[in-house]
């Protein structure tokens, strides 16, 4: 395994294992003391660097650090050697905060919140051979035993992502005649796809991408906004961790768009993958099945502490299905109950069409994996895309097959994925419009669906990355 990132990112040079010292074009800021021009540098056995002054004194030199932010802002060749990049985004970092909490003065301690994605939960359930509810309860016990205060479920915040996507689509559909880039609307929940789009197709593709935040980032707004207020805490007094099926989510959390300047804090402080949760369990020497279950935190949940819900439309969030049904009703007054997917070139490229009297009213598609993204983008460029909406995901088979999910050695990846899918689909589905808590939050926290506050909390923007030459791109 060369890289943990999705295939899309591997191709955009994000995964070149080239030493940043040689190739990174990002100017690295190192605090330097003015001094004499010439100096000797000694490298210690542990790899640290000391500057030897002329009087013989030694001074330890700082290491240059490149953050995920630098990489996102850069189109150059980038190293993603995990040690360099993901220092802010690992389970080690969560450990640090939990350890700090144990010794710090109460006023300095952070409230630790973990939001678990339903895809991660299904992967863990399959690994531990338990049902999803049991897994959720036992995972809550385990995380709380480490010092975590609250454990939430990003299925809840996905209600907002779905509702906002639905309404955005209908708005775009209605203005398609005056705005050539209103359609097709392209899904925005997959950070691998977003990163690829920004870096490779920049200003051409960005206008098509839905501005709705992903469930992870809506959860970020909820936790650092509404929840912080409720707890009478500043956003920076909360440490918010998400558990995700995907390494690319670490990049998403690091985007400057999701950084609160006022309080100098990120909406999501740290993203750990499903696989990293398993590593946490192993480090603690705990098997999840042996843990006693506790009731679930219900503050941000749809129902009760004894039940979990999901959304229909597959393991990548169900964006296509929700938008399709909503648009059929809203735009054409047609009630759609079941959706017929038509596989095209391969199982990761499927089409859904709404017809009336032989006229195509809506044509939607799922495009998962890099090859299908590629064909979609090329079709768009040639003006040959017939679609109104495309659910784009970077991973083949979608999020349940994300790069951060647990892999089982000796088991065929197909069989394994089927088990995870089955568990994911075992939950009762909910309809976002009917979620009381969501409706109340729209009203009380956001001041209505079309308020400025709702736009800020639930939508984001994208930035084309200018191509700049790197050392390796010299044209001979």
């Amino acid at each position, binding site marked *: 395994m060369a890289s943990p990132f999705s295939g899309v990112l591997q191709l955009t040079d994000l995964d070149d294992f080239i030493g940043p010292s040689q190739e990174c074009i990002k100017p690295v800021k190192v605090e330097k003391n003015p001094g004499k021009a010439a100096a000797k540098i000694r490298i210690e056995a542990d790899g640290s660097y000391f500057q030897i002054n002329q009087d013989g004194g030694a001074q330890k030199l700082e290491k240059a650090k490149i953050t995920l932010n630098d990489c996102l802002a850069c189109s150059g060749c980038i190293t993603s050697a995990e040690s360099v990049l993901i220092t802010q985004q690992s389970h080690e970092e969560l450990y640090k905060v939990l350890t700090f909490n144990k010794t710090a003065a109460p006023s300095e301690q952070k409230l630790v919140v973990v939001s678990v994605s339903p895809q991660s939960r299904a992967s863990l359930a399959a690994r531990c051979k338990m049902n999803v509810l049991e897994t959720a309860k036992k995972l809550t016990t385990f995380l709380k035993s480490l010092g975590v205060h609250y454990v939430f479920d990003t299925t809840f915040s996905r209600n907002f992502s779905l509702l906002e996507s639905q309404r955005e689509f209908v708005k775009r559909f209605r203005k398609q005649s005056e705005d050539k880039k209103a359609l097709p609307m392209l899904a925005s929940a997959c950070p691998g796809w977003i990163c690829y789009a920004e870096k490779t197709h920049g200003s051409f593709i960005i206008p098509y991408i839905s501005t709705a935040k992903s469930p992870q980032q809506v959860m970020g707004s909820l936790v650092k906004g509404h929840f912080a207020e409720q707890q009478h805490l500043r956003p920076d007094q909360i440490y918010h961790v998400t558990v995700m099926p995907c390494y690319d989510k670490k990049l998403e959390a690091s985007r400057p768009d999701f950084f609160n300047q006022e309080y100098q804090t990120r909406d999501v402080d740290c993203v750990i993958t499903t696989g990293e949760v398993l590593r946490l369990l192993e480090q603690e020497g705990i098997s999840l099945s042996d843990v006693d279950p506790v009731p679930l935190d219900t503050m941000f949940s749809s129902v009760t502490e004894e039940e979990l819900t999901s959304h229909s439309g597959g393991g990548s969030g169900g964006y296509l299905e929700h938008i399709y049904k909503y648009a059929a009703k809203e735009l054409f007054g047609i009630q759609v109950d079941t959706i017929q997917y038509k596989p095209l*070139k391969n199982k990761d490229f499927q089409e859904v069409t709404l017809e009336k009297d032989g006229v195509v009213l809506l044509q939607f598609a799922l495009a998962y994996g890099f090859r299908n993204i590629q064909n979609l983008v090329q079709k768009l460029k040639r003006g040959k895309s017939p679609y109104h909406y495309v659910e784009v995901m970077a991973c083949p088979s979608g999020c349940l097959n994300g790069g951060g999910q647990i892999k089982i050695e000796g088991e065929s990846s197909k069989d394994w994925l089927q088990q995870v899918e089955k568990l994911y689909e075992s939950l009762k589905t909910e309809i976002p419009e009917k979620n009381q808590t969501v409706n109340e939050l729209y009203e009380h926290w956001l001041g209505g669906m079309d308020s400025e506050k709702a736009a800020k909390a639930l939508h984001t923007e994208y930035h084309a990355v200018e191509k700049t030459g790197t050392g390796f791109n010299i044209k001979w």
Partner: protein
Amino acid sequence: AQTATASDTAGVKSEHHERLVAHVLLPCSSFSCVTTLEGHENEVKSVAWAPSGNLLATCSRDKSVWVWEVDEEEEYECVSVLNSHTQDVKHVVWHPNQELLASASYDDTVKLYHEEEDDWVCCATLEGHESTVWSVAFDRSGKRLASCSDDKTVRIWRQYKPGNEEGVACSGTDPTWKCVCNLSGFHTRTIYDVAWCHLTGALATACGDDAIRVFEESSPAAPQQPTFSLAAHVARAHSQDVNCVAWNPKEPGLLASCSDDGEIAFWKYQRPEVC
């Protein structure tokens, strides 16, 4: 030993080849660009049609190999993006009659791919070269593959199917490819290309030492341990690196070569009477 081999066979050359140089100018009016395939991140190194004519393979310095499909309307769609190599990919070539693809890379390996369900997968990695593999060529049957490298060797690989008589281990249902011959000591610099003539079975190489060499398999052939001997060596075939060699598919012994010197040369190769 290397120079001795070279000078020994140098005498053979005048009898077995003649050189015709062509500077080619393509008449622009006869070609028009039908489609441009976009997707690779940077330099595209090689392109090859599958024998069926419906599939196309490309490879690039972005480390990926792409398989494209052409439909009835001359629309090209990407069927697969293969990220198996860890370094840039120099060359792609198809099996002469099956949908089996081979690629050569800066990561010192050759990889083979076939379609499985609705995607392409890497089904074999040929390890052995000690430096960049620049090119690969199948023999007429497609059961053997020649690879040439910056390590100055040409290696011949043979396919062993599961349950083969020789007892070569295979994993699962995929055949194993084993190196059965290593031609070392003949070339003094990087070997950039290898071409296996499907009419005569002669193997030609293009080398950074400006030379073209032709190898013949010694008969009787021992399939498990074939031996190849140098049949012709044109020491200064070009005044600079030879980049590519290609056998004419119809006329036995007609070889084309091209070089950094800007020339394309044509050679008539005649098999020595006794090899």
